[in-house]
């Protein structure tokens, strides 16, 4: 997990929403073929591993060994591989998929909820300790996350939480980046006058939040949700130390277990399933990024905050 926060370089206190850029009318830049070719090389570097993954998920274990990595083998075994991935070892892959969905649902969902509430508070309320919270949270982002892993494990182990889903979900609930993004976003997207008006009409704080603020925060919420989802879906280190029981593994941990079982003596070599499982693991996220492109890119631009 890496988080990063950037302010608009134009040092303005209030970040603006998607600054409309003036069209470059005088001397509109000419399209450049050479530059496009260079970028195409970059894209090649980016997609070759993904193409490799797709091609090789169509191969049997034997086909993997005796065919060229960037072309298909004689047998097309994709559907068999998908079926085998889901049926191998009593269908544990399906269980890992459900676990991952559970961790994402509660972890990323919860993290987004806490970030939205907190960001709203920081943006729209004045209260004692507000500045301190800001300093501590920003400071904590810089603490190497893995340095916290061992003490967190020991703490959770004393509380009897290790080897339960809670050990993965609870630490996922905090997203300092999410808090920061929501803060910046809420400051910009919710006019304070609107809140005042709602209060004047006698709406409670809770009601004001749900009926006035929440709808305005929607694009920011999508962005935070997407990025916390990636962080939780891709999480490896935390489950690795917290979970022993394979029944609670997320996909990432399961895949690495399948991969390393080939190295153990008498272990089943199932590289075809590792490859197919990897493909199945990344497809949902790639799809989410592609389909929600418009939302998360504008959400990022709104705060000039990126993760």
């Amino acid at each position, binding site marked *: 997990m890496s988080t990063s926060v950037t302010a608009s370089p134009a040092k303005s206190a209030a970040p603006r929403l998607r600054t409309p850029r003036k069209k470059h009318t005088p001397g509109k830049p000419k399209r450049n073929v050479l*530059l496009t070719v260079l970028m195409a090389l970059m894209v090649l570097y980016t*997609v070759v591993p993904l193409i490799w993954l797709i091609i090789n998920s169509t191969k049997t274990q034997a086909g993997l060994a005796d065919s060229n990595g960037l072309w298909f083998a004689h047998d097309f075994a994709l559907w068999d591989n998908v079926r085998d991935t889901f049926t191998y070892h009593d269908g544990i892959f399906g269980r890992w998929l459900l676990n991952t969905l559970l961790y994402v649902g509660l972890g990323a969902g919860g993290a987004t909820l806490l970030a939205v509430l907190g960001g709203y508070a920081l943006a729209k309320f004045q209260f004692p300790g507000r500045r301190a919270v800001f300093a501590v949270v920003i400071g904590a982002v810089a603490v190497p996350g*893995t340095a916290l892993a061992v003490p967190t494990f020991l703490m959770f182990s004393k509380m009897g939480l290790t080897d339960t889903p809670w050990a993965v979900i609870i630490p996922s609930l905090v997203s300092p980046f999410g808090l920061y993004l929501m803060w910046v976003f809420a400051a910009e997207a919710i006019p304070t006058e609107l809140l005042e008006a709602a209060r004047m009409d006698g709406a409670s704080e809770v009601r004001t939040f749900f009926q006035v603020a929440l709808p305005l925060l929607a694009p920011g919420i999508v962005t935070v949700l997407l990025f916390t989802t990636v962080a939780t879906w891709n999480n490896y280190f935390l489950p690795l130390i917290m979970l022993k029981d394979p029944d609670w593994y997320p996909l990432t941990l399961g895949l690495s277990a399948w991969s390393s079982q080939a190295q153990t003596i008498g272990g089943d070599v199932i590289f075809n399933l590792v490859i197919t499982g990897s493909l199945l693991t990344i497809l949902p996220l790639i799809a989410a990024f592609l389909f929600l492109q418009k939302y998360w890119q504008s959400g990022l631009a709104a705060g000039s905050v990126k993760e």
Partner: protein
Amino acid sequence: MTTLQPPVAAEPRPAPPPAKRDRRSWTGWGFLGPFVAVFALVFLAPIVYSIYLSLFRNQLIGGNQFVGLDNYTRALQDEAFWGAVGRVALFLAVQVPLMLGIALLVALALDSGRLYGKSFFRITIFLPYAVPAVVATLMWGFMYGTKYGLVGDINSAFGVTLPDLLSPGWVLASIGNIVTWEFVGYNMLIFYSALRVVPTSLYEAAEIDGAGQWRIIRSIKLPAIRGAIVIATIFSIIGSFQLFNEPSILRPLALNSITTDFTPNFYTYSLSFNGQQHNYSATVAIIMGVITMIVAYAVQLRGMRKEA
């Protein structure tokens, strides 16, 4: 204690008028409270507990004993630890400038408006960010292999013998390639978004004054996104010092090249989970955290000083 303030630390917006302060002074906590509670449990408590642990030693006879700074003295003389630090420092010195340099070039190319199919390039180059480190490492690990991998294919197709990318001499570079692949698009997006905020009128004015594209990049674009560059550098440094996932997943394929003390994080992990040396492990983690913050802070100071 652990406060590093990125240059962004400017508050998003001036506080609401203080007139309403007394009426709602604590209401904000109602909304912020849940976040702070969990934050305290998973961030602050472990830091405090870690410091506590580092002052003790667990002995077979006598149980947990207070040893003061003994663990720290031991760590400072621990060759395995410093070997690991040296390795990530080398990694950092080569991989981070390379990755950020490429990301910057791509961002500038996208921003120049001179590309065919700009949005295709932007989203495609960003995509690896959505790929878990586990999957990225497994893919590249397979591709590096001489048996199933592309390296083997190239060797047999061209009758050459490429170096074994998983051998001790090459494995660090191989990991560097995986990390670059994973994060180059992410950093590109940071730079690109920062570039989009620069007012185009500045470029127009410069063009009228006869400035060429390179001149505009050097004198306007790069200074304008300095903040983003500093941030990306700091987070890449933190990432390098934390290196764990890639070597740990690659290890089964490269047992001789990747030892259990390959990186500082790998070392703390092994100490704790294979060696049951929780106290010493906590100490090493703290020292590493302090080193990371010193380096990150130094970079930030340097980056900001130039701006002034």
